[in-house]
């Protein structure tokens, strides 16, 4: 009896469709994504039931870590440049164009203004070290944070303020930041939190 001939099938699968899908997804992710901004410190934000999303543009972020160090960040490079230039002027420190461009690449910074030049001269890798994260002085004796905030408001009138503080931050620090903001008539701001489910029953 003759055997039934099994027709030989090629084992190669057409990858075209899969390739299409992969690149479609890739395009989707590239268009919808915004990169995780690098922050100089790790902040564990508290959770709340608030469902308001933070607006996408014109945000000034005040980062406060649990030791009470204050960092200040802006979302556009143009703003960052102008703000540093103006803050420098307020403390009669002139920053070169190169330093301004270097600064505009940093998301949020926490360096006292007198150390800013040295900080910008560092290599980008060296800036991430723990020693570089000093925090902007925000006490009543030397309130550089106030100057930063005021300058930022002058540079960009539509700026919205977001406070991102660690859950463990002592209230004392928060209070001093809030008082500073109140002093310069910044009366509306957002507290950044993560979402928590809650029942009202």
């Amino acid at each position, binding site marked *: 009896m003759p055997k039934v001939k099994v027709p030989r099938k090629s084992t*190669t699968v*057409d*990858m*075209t469709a*899969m*390739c299409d899908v*992969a*690149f479609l*997804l*890739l395009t989707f*992710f*590239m268009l*919808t*994504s*915004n*990169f*995780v901004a690098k922050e100089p410190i790790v902040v564990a*934000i*508290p959770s*709340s*039931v*608030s*469902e*308001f*999303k*933070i607006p*996408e543009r014109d945000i000034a972020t005040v980062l*406060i870590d649990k030791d009470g160090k204050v960092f200040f960040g802006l979302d556009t490079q143009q703003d960052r440049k102008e703000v540093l230039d103006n803050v420098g002027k307020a403390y009669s420190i002139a920053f070169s164009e190169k330093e301004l461009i270097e600064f505009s690449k940093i998301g949020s910074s926490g360096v006292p203004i007198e150390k800013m030049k040295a900080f910008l001269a560092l290599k980008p890798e060296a800036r991430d070290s723990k020693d570089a994260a000093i925090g902007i002085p925000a006490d009543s004796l030397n309130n550089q944070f106030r100057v930063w905030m005021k300058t930022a408001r002058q540079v960009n009138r539509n700026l919205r303020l*977001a406070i*991102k*503080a*660690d*859950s*463990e*931050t*002592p*209230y*004392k620090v*928060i*209070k001093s930041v*809030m008082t500073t*903001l*109140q*002093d310069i*008539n910044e*009366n*509306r*701001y*957002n*507290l*950044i*939190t*993560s*979402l*928590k489910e*809650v*029942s*009202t*029953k």
Partner: protein
Amino acid sequence: MAEMQVEDKGKKGKKPKQKKHATRVDLTPMVDLGFLLITFFMLTTSMLKPQTMEISVPSKDKVEEDEQNKVKASQAITVLIGKENKLYYYFGAQENGVDPELILTDYSSEGIRKMLVSKNAEVMNNVNQLKLDKANRKVSDEEYRQKLTDYKAAKSAPTIVIKAADESNYKNLVDVLDEMNICNIGRYAIVDITPYDLGLIDKKTPPAK
């Protein structure tokens, strides 16, 4: 798609027959590359935007007018945020030299929330009804917002004064503000803690042995 049929038109023998090359390309490496990039983008992006809680504080000039005194002492509930995650509240204020009773509570739903919900029952009922109506599409978005503000501003609603001690932490503050949202409280203020309030807490705390 990637393969194209190269048909020879069957013209006989003038040119030497060229060998037929398959134009099919192996797309596997390209797919690999595609997925590699997808993985990269998925891991580096933040799709979730963080939530925010919007607060407005009175401007400095108003504070100087002594806003705090405008709050009717009899209607106010003072919430004190103490150290070590302790939470206290009292009703009203000191009257005729008699201290209000300070009550120790906590951040759970059985603690401060229960008290706030019971004090704010009328508004809570209204708001819940409103939310139900909205879910059933009985009210428009515009109406919903309007009514929500109206309900929250009701006369019967309590006024909460939040006072945080320096030793309390940020999470405590956010938790209390959160309770204000959950319990639909429209009128609340964050005020500096006074020595009087600290004294009340001290009296309440049993002396360490």
